[in-house]
């Protein structure tokens, strides 16, 4: 057994779970919750099985599963993981049961539909993280939107309809241009080589003319920039976060935002290296603007959820910057920061959920001095907040440190790839860390310290068993990642190295001949020049 069946199984399990939940008898929702929780837990266990099969010392794709899906179009259902997607996959399967478990307090109507939507969302996310075929990726990437749209729209707050439509349309506009680029690639590969395929490995062997690369990269970049979200296309995020119910916010921030960075890593940059090199300076600058801008806007918010939402804009800016720095450290930091952001921001949102369930308000002014009432919650929430602010010994510190360090050292990449003035960008990014610590601690202080001056807060109850379990698990994760990051960093290192090497080759290589159209010419696989590592390292 080579374990290749595990990845399709991981996608299938939540779908089966969702179908079972939908046909389960209508009732209090207890059965639906139990089904949902068990299926997502089984999914998590299976993902640990994937982990067991994974060989950390290899840089390529592993557990590759490949079967024909649409034969007449040459589209394969192809999945696989490397050291990068492995951890994001585990983040997904870890956060979903946790969120479902925590959701008991916040979701009490249409429970069956809620659980089914969450499971479908999980299937979509897993599928997107393991897809090795552009078409398959696009399908899963879009599937994710529908359950999230329903989550915001049905269980959300006051302006949920506006927020859900804005979320859907924003993301859709971006991904449709990506679809145009995907079709373009697909058709071009068909016309140049005679075989129609949307296989990622095959397509990355196609050398596009410079101009085509720039346009295609721009189309992909828009889709992923909206998802990250990069300044100035971030405006959907605060609305979506504020209106979404707690589980929706947790999954949105915890996992879904990662698809932006992941998309750049897995698709946009390997497919169009020259295009990426051309546009990287702009993206790096936007990322830094996002870091500072998100932090500054977070300052002035009165709504706790908005603070965390804008902090996401800031934190994901780090990830983008680290990635485009194109150093081993920077990219590792970027991925690590994504994982850390999943845990810490997920935790922040869950904590806000805890407060909201008790008081039904998210205004800072309504809180203060809560530490006395909820000491356990306050203690655990402090760890989460510190993790988000990047305190040493938490996961956030490692991520931010590595991205900034990686940015400082980004100067000697082969070819004509560079981001402008890495020192300056790194310095600005570092101010984001300071600002982040300030607004997060300000938020914490406003909520938990000071006098207990709002009478209603007098009767607040501390965490119940379920909430306690959730926060303990999260805090263990945050501190564990902060104290012992090596395991994660080591296992992604070969994959990141492969990525950097292939990207470097793509950038330094002269433009391919303009043979986009016209007589078919067999493609010359780029990998042929430097033998052992195939493009993307697939199939090692």
């Amino acid at each position, binding site marked *: 057994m080579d374990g290749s069946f595990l990845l399709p199984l991981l996608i299938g399990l939540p779908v089966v779970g969702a179908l079972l939940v939908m046909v389960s008898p209508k009732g209090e929702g207890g059965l639906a919750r139990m089904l949902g929780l068990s299926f997502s837990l089984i999914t998590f266990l299976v993902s640990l099985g994937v982990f067991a099969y994974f060989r950390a010392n290899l840089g390529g794709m592993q557990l590759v599963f490949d079967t*024909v899906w649409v034969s007449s*179009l040459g589209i394969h259902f192809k999945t696989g993981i490397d050291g990068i997607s492995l951890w994001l996959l585990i983040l997904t399967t870890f956060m979903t049961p946790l969120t479902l478990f925590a959701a008991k307090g916040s979701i009490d109507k249409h429970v069956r539909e809620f659980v089914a939507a969450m499971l479908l969302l999980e299937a979509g996310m897993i599928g997107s993280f393991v897809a090795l075929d552009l078409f398959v990726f696009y399908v899963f990437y879009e599937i994710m939107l529908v359950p999230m749209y329903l989550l915001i729209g049905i269980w959300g707050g006051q302006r949920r309809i506006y927020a859900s439509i804005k979320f859907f349309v924003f993301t859709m506009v971006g991904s*449709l241009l990506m679809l*145009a680029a995907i079709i373009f690639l697909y058709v071009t590969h068909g016309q140049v080589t005679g075989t129609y395929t949307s296989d990622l490995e095959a397509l990355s062997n196609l050398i596009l003319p410079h101009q085509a690369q720039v346009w295609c990269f721009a189309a992909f970049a828009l889709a992923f920039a909206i998802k990250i979200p990069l300044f100035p296309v971030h405006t959907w995020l605060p609305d979506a976060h504020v209106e979404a119910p707690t589980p929706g916010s947790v999954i949105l921030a915890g996992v879904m935002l990662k698809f932006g960075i992941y998309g750049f890593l897995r698709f946009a940059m390997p497919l169009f290296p020259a295009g990426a090199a051309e546009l990287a300076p702009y993206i790096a600058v936007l990322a830094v603007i996002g870091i500072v801008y998100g932090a500054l806007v977070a300052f002035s918010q009165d709504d706790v959820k908005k603070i965390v939402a804008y902090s996401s804009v800031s934190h994901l800016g780090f990830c983008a910057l680290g990635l485009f720095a194109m150093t081993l450290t920077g990219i590792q930091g970027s991925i690590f920061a994504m994982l850390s952001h999943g845990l810490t921001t997920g935790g922040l949102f869950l904590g806000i959920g805890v407060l909201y369930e008790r008081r039904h308000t998210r205004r800072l002014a309504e809180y203060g001095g809560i530490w006395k009432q909820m000491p356990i919650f306050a203690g655990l929430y402090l760890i989460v907040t510190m993790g988000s602010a990047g305190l040493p010994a938490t996961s956030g510190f490692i991520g931010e440190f590595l991205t900034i360090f990686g940015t400082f050292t980004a100067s000697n990449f082969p070819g004509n790839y560079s981001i402008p003035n890495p020192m300056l960008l790194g310095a600005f990014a570092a101010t984001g860390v300071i600002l982040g610590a300030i607004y997060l601690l300000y938020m914490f202080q406003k909520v938990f310290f000071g006098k207990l001056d709002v009478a209603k807060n007098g009767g607040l109850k501390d965490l119940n068993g379920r909430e306690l379990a959730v926060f303990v698990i999260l805090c263990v994760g945050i501190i564990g990642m902060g104290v012992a990051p090596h395991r994660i960093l080591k296992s992604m290192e070969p994959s990141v190295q492969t990525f950097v090497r292939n990207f470097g080759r793509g950038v330094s290589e002269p433009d391919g001949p303009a043979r986009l159209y016209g007589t078919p010419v067999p493609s010359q696989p780029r990998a042929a020049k430097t033998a052992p590592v195939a493009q993307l390292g697939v199939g090692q």
Partner: protein
Amino acid sequence: MGLTVASALVVAVTALVHYNNIGDREVVLFNGMLVADKLGYLFSALAAFAVAIVALIAGPHQRTHAWENGEFFGILLLSSTGIIMLAHAGDLMTIFLGIETLSIAVYVLTALRKKSARGNEAAMKYFLMGAFATGILVYGMALLYGAAGTTNLAAMAERLVATPNLPLTVAGAFLVVIAFGFKIAAVPFHMWAPDAYEGAPTPVTAFMAAAVKAAAVVAMIRVFGTALGGEVLPFGTLGWASPLVIMAALTMTAGNLAALKQNNIKRLLAYSSISHAGVILVGVTAMAWARPRRFRRWFYVMAYGLTTLGAFAVVAYIGSKDRERLLLDDWAGLATSHPGAALAMTICMLSLGGIPPTAGFMGKFQIFKSAMEVYDGQLLWLVILGILNSAVSIYYYLKVVTAMYFKPVAQPVGELHAPSQAFVIALCAVLVMAMGLLPSFWMGL
């Protein structure tokens, strides 16, 4: 109703059997008046299937909306004769006959609710515009005959290769484009469609949107694919490609923009159908370059037809008890009271909006792929425009979903008893998903 469904299914099965047996052969019948090939049998089967579905929707609708008419079913079957004739047309004359058989039957269907003022207005508009279009069609055909000296499509192709740029040919092709533009409600010849769609009884609207449109498409494939281009004449030589391209761009965009502000579900679907006609036109244009009989891209026509039938079936179902319930406000909270219908409608809306993994997405992928293949990327801009239009369209399709799922119930919809409609809705929803998830089977058809 039962008899109609049965006979339609017999036709469908027969067509599919022939479809399987004929392979890549092309059998010419009646001196070239009719052609039996895969394309023809496929569309015949589709037409018969659509008739069966429409009949199943119409049965309960007639009872609850007091327009019980036995002749409805007869005329419905008659109109499908027209479609089948079009599907197998090998001659301009057959095309004309087919279009007239179909159109006259549908005019009558539109007007069947004699007491409804809206219905009469709709039928009148539809009839006048249709007659006008027929006139233009005949005029164009006459010019084409003048240029080629024959009305047989295959023979015409051969003769036009010798003298491709005759002014007569260009003018004739141009007029034929306009006539078909009327028939499929392409901008700027679409004005009649929203009123006709709204005024016609819902089952008839479903038939107009799905089957009549498919019929016009297959006629276009025959004329533009066989006689005026396709394998024989290069892209655009006969002067019909550019007007068609412009028409496609306008149709997609104008249809979508107009749909944005509709609050009446039938009008919304009418404008949506106009924009889909634009997408189909992109496919027809691309056909000028590739072999028209490789009709994987007509998967889109199947997908669109099925989805539209499903959507209108839900409209008919929801309005079946007391009143029509055409305003979106009437649909508020439907997900709570009728989760099945709401789910099916959501699937249809996602499919029309082109969201995977539905039939509509696969179809759009096909169409845009074939347009991208036209040489030198001449149609790249059209593809991007089409894709941007999808983004716009999502907004109004989501309006329907939003009303059903996110809004509190305003006008409660009571218990509904229309098993045949419920069956059709479920069937369409399942097929739309099946076509999206396992497209190979349907594309290999």
